[in-house]
């Protein structure tokens, strides 16, 4: 039996680091690139997992900042190693500043069928503040180019809650992105991660972020705007036209197995999560960390991941792990208050409560 799974490949290079980023990424050192891709291919070669790949995702970092042949090399290696589903979704994250036409054509040719642009904002002052290398015009141009070379599944990331941003401005950005032909938008409420330059700026009062209530307002208005344009919110921060949901990310939220290749990449199979070393040295030394999820943790993850999406989680899946959630008092209360809903064996959060999902999730934990 050939089980299905997803593949994540981490490209830890960037041309510069953005102020809000806490991902494993390093400003690109040319000499290191080749060594890294060699190691990456070796890691894939060593993998003993067998199954059918449903999705592949090149994330980063900025996968587009290295030569496309590197990506191709990895993709070929993957195809050599694993069975690929016919409809396999193959995504790559792109920075509008580093995606030229030839690169996009090459992606298309090698079989990548989904492209995700880190647009973040269409206001050049905000982009400069964030430390992004592109301008708004680059973003729109990149999207147009991607369409031109034949991409049909195009996503754009937007950040909500930047300093001095307003709901109307972001709704306007959404409008322009939709016009440009994207089929998917990820709209994230800006999260200040510890240790980032942004955290320092906020701490020093140099960056003033909108209050939670204002951010919630923006989120609500963006959701409405996208909904009016047939972009349905299928996850807390993800909106797509019908049929353009990101299958790779859905696999995470539905608790499917996934392999992670590359520096700091995480994989999870059968309740065991594995993380590669987060520095080049550790990665090249083959250092990896494993975590066997307890029953409690497995249950918690099903709930917290499932409730991120409009599909919710499956009650039976919890039952199989020994948790009968329908006996939970909070569960009953939330159902009666219309905060969550139950349908066809699945439980999901009602759409007005996505913004406060943590509060709901923790109360449903066993």
């Amino acid at each position, binding site marked *: 039996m050939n089980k299905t799974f997803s593949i994540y490949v981490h490209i830890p290079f960037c041309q510069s680091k953005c102020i809000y980023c806490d991902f494993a990424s390093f400003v690109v050192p040319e000499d290191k690139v080749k060594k890294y891709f060699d190691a990456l291919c070796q890691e894939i070669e060593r993998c003993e997992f067998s199954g059918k790949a449903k999705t592949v995702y090149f994330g980063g970092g900025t996968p587009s900042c290295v030569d496309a042949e590197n990506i191709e090399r990895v993709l070929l290696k993957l195809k050599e190693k694993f069975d690929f589903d016919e409809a396999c979704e193959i995504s790559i994250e792109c920075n509008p500043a580093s995606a030229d036409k030839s690169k996009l054509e090459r992606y298309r040719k090698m079989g990548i069928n989904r492209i995700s642009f880190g647009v973040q904002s269409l206001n050049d002052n905000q982009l400069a503040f964030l430390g992004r290398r592109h301008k708004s015009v680059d973003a729109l141009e990149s999207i147009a180019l991607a369409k031109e070379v034949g991409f049909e599944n195009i996503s754009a990331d937007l950040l909500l809650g930047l300093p001095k941003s307003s709901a109307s401005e972001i709704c306007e950005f959404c409008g322009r992105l939709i016009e440009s032909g994207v089929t998917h938008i990820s709209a994230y409420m800006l999260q200040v991660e510890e240790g980032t330059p942004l955290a320092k700026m906020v701490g020093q009062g140099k960056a003033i972020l909108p209050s939670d209530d204002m951010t919630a307002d923006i989120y609500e208005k963006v959701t409405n705007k996208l909904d009016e344009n047939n972009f349905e919110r299928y996850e*807390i921060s993800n909106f797509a036209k019908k049929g353009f949901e990101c299958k790779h990310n859905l696999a*995470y939220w539905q608790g499917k197995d996934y392999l992670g290749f590359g520096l700091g990449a995480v994989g999870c199979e059968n309740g065991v999560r594995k993380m590669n070393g987060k520095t080049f040295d550790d990665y090249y030394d083959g250092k990896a960390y494993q975590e066997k999820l307890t029953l409690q943790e497995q249950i918690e993850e099903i709930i917290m991941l499932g409730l991120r999406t409009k599909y919710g989680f499956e009650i039976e899946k919890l039952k199989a792990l020994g948790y009968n959630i329908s006996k939970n008092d909070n569960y009953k209360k939330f159902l009666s208050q219309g905060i969550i809903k139950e349908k066809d064996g699945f439980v999901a959060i009602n759409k007005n409560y996505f913004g*406060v999902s943590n509060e709901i999730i923790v109360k449903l934990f066993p």
Partner: protein
Amino acid sequence: MTKYSLLSRLLILFAKCKVFGYNICDMDRLEKIRNFCIIAHIDHGKSTLADRLIESTGTLEKRDMQSQLLDSMELEREKGITIKLTPTRMVYHSQGEEYILNLIDTPGHVDFTYEVSRSLAACEGAILIVDASQGVEAQTLANAYLAIDNNLEILPVINKIDLPSARPEEVKKEIEDVVGIPAMHAPCISAKDGTNIDAVLEMIVKEFPCPKGDENGKLKCLIFDSYYDNFKGAICLIRVFDGQVRVGDKIKMMQTGRVFDVTEVGVFVPYSKPVDVLMAGDVGYLAGSIKTISDVAVGDTITKADDPTQVPLPGYKKVQPVVYCGIFPVDGAKYNELKDALEKLKLNDASLQYQPEVSEALGFGFRCGFLGLLHLEIITERIEREFNLDIITTAPGVYYKVHKTNGEILEVSNPSNLPSPVEIDFIEEPVVKASIFTPPEYVGAIMELCQDKRGIYKDLVYLDKSRVRVDYTLPLGEIIYDFFDSLKSRTKGYASFDYEIAGFEKSDLVRVDILLNGEKCDALSLIVHKDKAYARGRAIAEKLKKIIPRQLFEVPIQAAIGNKIIARETISAMRKDVLAKCYGGDITRKRKLLEKQKEGKKKMRQIGSVEIPSEAFMSILKLNDDE
């Protein structure tokens, strides 16, 4: 033959004296004992001087000092109060004579004023330490007056002369002017550096009177402290005034009437060391398989059961709780663990009182009585730390005498037990006689504060040109709010304050209830004076709005007297509590964040549909009027 036998008898007598630890003739015995304590304002160097005395007399080797100190520090941390050493017996040689010096320590807080007074009653002398740069401060004065009340000889010592800012001569004058005792010959020392410690020891021997007493009289011992030992039971710390006590004696506690067989007597050097006998003038301990500390009342007199004295030592008071609050486990299932914790604490603390109580909001718990707010804080902290229990403490209050229209009189310490207004004829509340000592420039501020706290002015006396005593009658219920803090801030810490319970007085009191989302929360109710009810109700509603986190829905907070709403605030619904991103790489981290958030919920109490943090119940006490 006769001559020989007389000599041998003398020798035997001498040997016996040695066995008893006294290298001196019986007649002179008392003259070679000094019982004293050290009193001071906080941080003026009480513990350091005590350490130096112990070290200088060779009671403990220097290398042992460290561990001794550490042990005490641990105890201090555990109790959260100023170090309280066991009384220490030191041997000191002066001009060829051997003296026994008993140092008795005193707790330093108004909650324990009675215990302090009993410790002082066990002494003949008190060393008053004053910081050479800070001079006389509030507690210097309060402690000095306590010592004067107990007829102690007070000898000032100027400490910290090693500091560049030391001004010993001025401070001596200050002591004479403010405290009113001669100070010109006070030794100037540095306890830290060990400078001039010998002068202090000489002073103790020369200036402090020796104890008086009749070792052949009927036994009279003062219990000035007690503690619980897991093996020996309750241990009495005693000062023998008359007679002798030894192992095997049948003793009687005069107040409680309980009789025990003495199983051990001893002294602290500073660890406990059994001796054969304690005689008039001695300080030491006594054990007698006493199972509960409640049988050992501080201030009680111990005498012999079969040959009792008729007259107990003066000054005994039954210690009554003055502050009450409810204590509940955050996790209702831990009621029994809380009960065990209280039982164990009570073993070592006779003044703690508790009885079961049920609250609609908080479930099963206990109503507990304390000597004061510090005592309350210590106990609640010990429950949390030593027994690892999360507890909810309701706002402290006093107890009221409620006269009902049907003639019945109720004693109410829990506001929710107050009968409905129609059944109440009148209510009496406890009042205290308060004396405040202050430099004259703060009199105005103090009078304003007392007025604000519903005080009734009694007297104002100029003690000298720099010290004034202000007397007020104040409701106890007002004092346990933020009186200490207000007094301190209004007088820069220079005022010292003491009070005694002065009975009950009729007062116009009402109960203010708090409603959350329309539901009354009994654990938040409180009894206040009618004139203050509106302001207090409003302040509590505002405070709760700050403390209660936003919930999934809007929560109105109301304060009410009966059915009348007197204040309202609204907590708007929560709008954002979400993890914007969660992909394959950070599922573990995000799960842990949520687990932590869930853990935080355990400190929350569900009242109806509203979640309240445990500290909300206590916080309504800390309403600053100036806020």
